[in-house]
């Protein structure tokens, strides 16, 4: 288990971007009325945002980053750009390189993609800290976003109504007086098949497979190029590993659950987040939820929830937050951090 104490890093701003287009659960044509009601009650998803065909995850992150950099006026100080995504623009080059140019960042800026999903934002914060804490870099721009809706088959009732699209940008900087952060993470690749797009890369190149749609279960139609999710396996993985990881971070920090201002979980679905919250014995108001409005937005769900649900307190108050991302891989990461005076903005992409 990777457990770490992190020093000298501050989060200065978190901006998120959601597409304007709204898909409502009750309008999903492959649900009966009862199915739609049960899906909404169980997952918590009333509606979600879906990006237009020509809009990518990097476009949404670009908009978030552009607005953030203009407001903070710090283009020239960005020494590292990290883009966490599983829906890059191309197989290659890394979308981070394209974003470095589009954002007008210095060519001395390092830029790379990180291929992680729901745990990726928290891993990205760790990466930013690792580069910043020695004092050599000035500022890091962490972008996290996904266009998951491009991967789901419209007739897959287990996946299509679950995912939304979003992008985010987080600005971090060296802070000599910053309070310590505490990190825990892990991986269980035995769960690789639980959330997977089988075809289209090296293991199963496009020319090599039959991409016919198949009804894999009643009401679940997809091909091998679409995202497949095993909800039961994900639920079991999350309930086995996430509370342990959260407790590991609390043990490292020597804090108790009740000393947290907020536990911000990846917005997988309400059944999972409620189950984790109950295990941690936290009241609903300490575990903000944005899934009803945006669905599961993969790597963007934690920054989006921070912008959507905690904007005012992030700006005004000193907070002790515990962030936990978990999912595809399986992979998970938890981070306890202190924040103060964090600028936030939630923007729409036309």
């Amino acid at each position, binding site marked *: 288990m990777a457990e770490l104490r992190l020093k000298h890093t501050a989060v200065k701003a978190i901006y998120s971007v959601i597409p304007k287009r709204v898909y409502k659960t009750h309008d999903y044509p492959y649900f009966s009325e009862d199915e739609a009601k049960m899906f909404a009650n169980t997952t918590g998803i009333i509606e979600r945002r879906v990006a237009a065909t020509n809009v990518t995850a990097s476009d949404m992150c670009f908009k978030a980053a552009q607005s953030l950099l203009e407001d903070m006026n710090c283009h020239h100080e960005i020494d590292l750009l990290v883009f966490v995504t599983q829906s890059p623009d191309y197989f290659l080059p890394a979308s981070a390189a394209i974003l470095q140019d589009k954002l007008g960042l210095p060519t001395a800026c390092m830029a790379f993609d990180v291929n992680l999903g729901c745990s990726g934002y928290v891993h990205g914060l760790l990466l930013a800290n690792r580069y910043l804490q020695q004092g050599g870099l000035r500022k890091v721009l962490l972008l996290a976003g996904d266009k998951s809706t491009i991967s789901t088959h419209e007739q897959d009732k287990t996946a299509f109504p679950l995912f939304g699209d979003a992008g985010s940008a987080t600005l971090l900087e060296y802070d000599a007086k910053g309070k310590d952060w505490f990190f825990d993470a892990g991986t269980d690749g035995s769960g690789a098949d639980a959330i997977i797009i089988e075809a289209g890369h090296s293991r199963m190149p496009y020319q090599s497979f039959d991409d016919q749609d198949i009804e894999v279960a009643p009401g679940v139609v997809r091909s091998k190029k679409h995202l497949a999710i095993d909800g*039961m396996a994900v639920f079991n993985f999350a309930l*086995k590993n996430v509370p342990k990881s959260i407790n590991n971070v609390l043990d490292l920090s020597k804090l108790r659950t009740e000393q947290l201002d907020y536990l911000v979980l990846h917005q997988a679905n309400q059944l999972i987040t409620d189950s984790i919250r109950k295990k941690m014995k936290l009241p609903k108001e300490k575990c903000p939820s944005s899934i009803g409005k945006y669905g599961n937005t993969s790597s963007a769900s934690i920054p989006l929830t921070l912008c959507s649900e905690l904007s005012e307190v992030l700006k005004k108050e000193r907070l002790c937050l515990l962030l936990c991302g978990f999912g595809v891989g399986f992979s998970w990461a938890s981070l306890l951090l202190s924040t103060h005076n964090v600028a936030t903005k939630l923007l729409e992409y036309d």
Partner: protein
Amino acid sequence: MEIDDFITAIEEEFDNLNPGDVTPNSVFRDMEGWSSMHALIFVALIDSKYDVLLNGEELKSCVTINDLFDITRLKLNGGGAKA
């Protein structure tokens, strides 16, 4: 752990169930509109009430409510890999 409590918890969890609808011999997959979502709700309910996490294979091995009760009780008493 009593089966009556187990059944009551299930009847309270689903809007379309009334007291007395479920018996130990009820085949849970015969519930109206059964889907993978129902399966998740069962597993979450058992985890929440008994701190016992059933996996997909364990759920597949069960047919009746009594089967679910038995496997939950077995795991609760240390007879399986408790979460």
